[in-house]
């Protein structure tokens, strides 16, 4: 059978690949989407079970998913099996790589926090001199954010903050609750603001490529989705050096196949796209492919606050009314916000009404139970999210000694946080603790040790964009400097992370890049 040649071959069906499919098919391009995972029927794949019926009473099979702190025995089968697709690192420098392989990718499970980047990120070097600017500005991406927002139905409240541009919100009119208002008032002198969280509502059950992007793309008649297709490498035309398709493996049988296309788009997630490029031995004339790996460091409950008036179940009405968010307030234009020993800044999710974990009480037996009863619902949980500086020294490369279940070389991680992150974490915990106290709350526990890199599931960089082909892999259209008909549309293209969760930006970039691709294809320029 003759191989059919598609206009565009897309690898991956998550937020990035899904948005590429959505945008390209609307422009009339015939797309083939290869997805390593299965098409999951949620009705059949999941079922309610009591925890005591699980073989390991909810602890999970020992050693099964050592890097996925988010895994439990209920959801263990939703994550990529670490034995099937392993990766390596120095045991002293762990990296928590959290992966999903299914049609829809991680967008099936994300927490949907949806924030825009600002020019504090896009033009970070202009602001503080470190690293590089992105080759685009906020103004260039804003029209695409504006079009992504209504698809994902982002809820929030207009705040007018330069470091956190507003979306086209479905307005969140719910009250803040007195606890958040008190934190906002106490933090004001430090330039701190407390905002609503911003969240993609989607259709309620999902806010995923699975329901918001892929069905619309298929409705054009221009999209063929092939699940269970594990892409091994991009193939190139020897004469032109251009991509001409990919070789891939049937996930279930191991059969090797090849698919042809005029253009290849990678949306396999930040590190899987880079792995495909490294295995393909292309797009790396700069030598920076795999480098500048960064993310956001996370500290879960770095500060556990307590609302004294809410102890013993006595929270007054109106004290607690949903979660809040402290956007970055360090190292902004105002000199008063300058931090003494770190660049960039951090943000913080706030959860008034939390119940502190039993581990935080230095007690056991009846005394512990008494404490738990007293503090139930009286806590203020936090997640501190700090910008990690992108450094050449943090990178992934192929591990020549280890292969996955399909014989594809795996990644080796070399990634460490540095003093900038450690100092920032300390400042975050000290400052938020003090603000809680100023607001009349207690601090039950404070901890400035972050989780290992990768934990935030916001891995970024390794295939970064830039104007200079000597120090970047992609141009400002997510297009390879070296291979003109190759685009990489996921988080690997990021130059800096900011403190904001990245998916809204991944979606906006993928939409923008796809429309450029379609325009160039129309001109015969690819």
């Amino acid at each position: 059978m003759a191989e059919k040649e598609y206009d565009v071959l897309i690898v991956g069906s998550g937020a990035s690949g899904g948005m590429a499919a959505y945008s390209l098919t609307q422009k009339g391009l015939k797309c083939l989407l290869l997805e390593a995972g299965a098409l999951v029927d949620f009705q059949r794949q999941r079922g309610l079970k009591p925890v005591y019926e699980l073989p390991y009473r909810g602890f999970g099979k020992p050693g099964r998913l050592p890097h996925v702190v988010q895994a439990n025995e209920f959801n263990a089968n939703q994550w990529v099996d670490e034995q099937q697709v392993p990766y390596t690192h120095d045991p002293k420098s762990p990296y928590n790589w959290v992966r999903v392989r299914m049609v829809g990718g991680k967008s099936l499970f994300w927490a949907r926090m949806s924030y825009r980047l600002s020019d504090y990120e896009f033009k970070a070097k202009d602001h503080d001199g470190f690293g590089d600017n992105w080759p685009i500005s906020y103004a260039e991406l804003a029209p695409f954010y504006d079009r992504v927002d209504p698809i994902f139905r982002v809820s929030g409240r207009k705040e007018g903050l330069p470091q956190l541009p507003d979306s086209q919100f479905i307005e969140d009119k719910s009250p803040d609750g007195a606890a958040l208002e008190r934190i906002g008032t106490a933090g004001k002198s430090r330039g701190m603001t407390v905002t609503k969280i911003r969240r993609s509502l989607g259709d309620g059950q999902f806010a995923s490529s699975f329901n918001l992007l892929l069905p619309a793309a298929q409705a054009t008649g221009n999209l063929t989705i092939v699940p269970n297709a594990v892409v091994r490498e991009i193939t190139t035309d020897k004469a032109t050096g251009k991509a001409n398709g990919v070789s891939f493996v049937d996930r279930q049988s191991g059969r090797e196949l090849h698919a042809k296309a005029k253009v290849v788009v990678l949306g396999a997630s930040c590190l899987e796209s880079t792995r495909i490029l490294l295995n393909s031995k292309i797009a790396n004339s700069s030598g920076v492919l795999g480098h500048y790996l960064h993310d956001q460091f996370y500290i879960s409950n770095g500060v556990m606050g307590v609302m004294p008036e809410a102890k013993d179940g006595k929270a007054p009405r109106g004290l607690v009314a949903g979660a809040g968010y402290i956007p970055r307030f360090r190292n902004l234009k105002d000199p008063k916000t300058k931090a003494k020993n770190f660049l960039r800044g951090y943000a913080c999710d706030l959860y008034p009404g939390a119940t502190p974990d039993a581990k935080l009480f230095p007690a056991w037996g009846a005394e512990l139970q008494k404490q738990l009863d007293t503090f139930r619902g009286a806590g203020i949980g936090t997640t501190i999210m700090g910008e990690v500086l992108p450094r050449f020294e943090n990178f992934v490369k192929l591990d020549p000694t280890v292969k996955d279940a399909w014989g594809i070389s795996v990644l080796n991680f070399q990634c460490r946080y540095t003093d900038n992150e450690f100092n920032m974490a300390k400042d975050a915990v000290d400052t938020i603790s003090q603000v809680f106290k100023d607001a009349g709350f207690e601090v039950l526990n404070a901890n400035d040790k972050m989780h290992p890199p990768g934990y935030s599931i916001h891995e970024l960089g390794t295939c970064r964009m830039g104007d200079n082909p000597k120090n970047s892999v992609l141009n400002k259209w997510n297009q390879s400097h070296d291979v003109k008909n190759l685009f990489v549309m996921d988080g690997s293209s990021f130059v800096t992370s900011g403190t904001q969760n990245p998916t809204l930006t991944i979606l906006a970039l993928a939409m923008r890049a796809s429309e450029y691709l379609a325009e160039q294809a129309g001109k015969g320029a690819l």
Partner: protein
Amino acid sequence: MKRRKFIQTLAVTPAAALPIVSESNAETPVVAQRPQEEAPKLETASLDAAGETMPRFFSAAQLAALKKLSNIILPPLNSMPGALDAGAPEFLDFLIGKSTAERRQIYTAGLNTLNAQATKRFGKAFADVTDAQAAELLAPLKQPWTYEPPADPFARFLREAKQDIRNATINSREYVTAGSSGGRRGGGVGQYWYPID
């Protein structure tokens, strides 16, 4: 296709595609024509309803110390079962026995230390100490929680054991059923993902 319709189609297709058994087995036409939904539904019980876990990993002295520790960490409280009622020590014998060498070592060394300290300070095994004596030995649990585990292996053991004993109890059949029958929170039920083919 609208999503609801798509799901309906998926739900109908496999049944329709199954071969009709009567075509391949003429002797049993009645059974064969029974619609698939009528397959008998048998009630089953969980393993823990049928028997008790047989300890295989810890020595008798270690298990005795773990039982004592479990009862101190989570005794029966407010008419809820305690760790011993929930078989937490026996379950942990199984779980730790299946765990990494490092985790096994933390437990065996920790339980040995409990017994050795009890013998040294009170002249008896940990299983036999009074509550006040036990409280002295568990002093490391009075330290504030830190993200990094304590450097002292005994303190680390106590911290891990506290968490594991509580989870093994709270996730047990005994605890979950007592919680729901007492009209308290239902608890203990979650959305389970079956293995993906």
